[in-house]
């Protein structure tokens, strides 16, 4: 891929915007379409694009497989953790109203954290599955 200047430069310009757009989708999900799932997929797509243009070994330097495995478990833990925190504060499991004095603010914090958990897991899983497929070598046909 060394000679494909347009692809390399184009990807280099695009990737930061893809990552920022993912964060926009994540944190604007309360007001418009989007949320953790879509944001996680878009965030992962940025890294997949990097891998496609610059090679798998280069993206693994930026984002080691161990890190994505940890991410994919961390998101689920964060989601369930929010549930246990609400229980500890005297509410039901995943009843975010108890997270702040004003139940409405509590709902905001809860949804923010939970969506963040979804983002982290989806991002981790998508990149990890891509690593698993792309790193498996190739059968010549």
């Amino acid at each position: 891929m060394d000679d494909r200047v347009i692809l390399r430069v184009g990807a280099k310009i695009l990737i930061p915007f893809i990552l920022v757009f993912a964060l926009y989708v994540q944190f604007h999900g309360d007001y418009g379409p989007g949320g953790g799932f879509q944001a996680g997929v878009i965030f992962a797509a940025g890294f997949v694009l990097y891998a496609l243009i610059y090679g798998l070994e280069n993206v693994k330097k930026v984002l080691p497989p161990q890190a994505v495995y940890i991410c994919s478990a961390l998101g689920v833990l964060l989601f369930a953790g929010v549930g246990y925190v609400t229980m500890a504060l005297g509410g039901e499991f995943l009843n975010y109203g108890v997270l702040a004095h004003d139940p409405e603010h509590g709902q905001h914090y809860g949804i923010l954290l939970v969506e963040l958990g979804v983002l982290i897991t989806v991002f981790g899983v998508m990149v990890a599955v891509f690593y698993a497929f792309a790193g498996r070598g190739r059968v010549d046909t």
Partner: protein
Amino acid sequence: MVEFVDITLLLLLGITAFSILRQKNLFAAVMMAGIYSLLSAGLFVVMDAVDVAFTEAAVGAGISTILMLGTLALVGHSEHQPQHRPILPLFVVILTGAVLVYGTLDIPPFGDASNPVHHHVAPHYLEESEHEIGIPNVVTSVLASYRGYDTMGETTVIFAALVGVLLLLSLGPRPRRIVSNGQRITGTDSEKPVSEEEVKEAQEDTLQVSPEEKTLGDTNG
């Protein structure tokens, strides 16, 4: 005008589905499947389900196309000639399709205000989520708060899917690699006994992606 958009999208969807069926080149079939997802996303937008459309465009047209291309890099681009006659599968598919179409006859008419789905919890979500949750996007309110259990389950399912993929892809014989001293080794099932150091060295070698290894990025060439 709305009918025109509907009919055009549905027509394109049908054409794409039919050409996927007829396509023998798997690379072209994967690209057509991506187009199919994009058209479905367009249909979801027409039906005002923008969140679903967003997911369909990102997952269906984006990531799964990439994963299918990754699979193609492993299995090759051309479809094998089928060894069996198509009569029985065709019969099963037509029967299943007929049963599914028969099932749709019981479904309440699309978009009718008197449908049961609009009279259970939906009115409560639409009217009260502004005060109870306080965020404008009702989809996010339902997804993350009212139906938090379901979303947690879905996140767990995604995680479980990763565990399944990793288990499946790490089982079985590893692809053969040639190590630096020219000796051919297999990762797990080598025929002759080797010393522990050699095995360790070999495993390290298989784990690290060597620069000359053919990765997905090179398959575009």
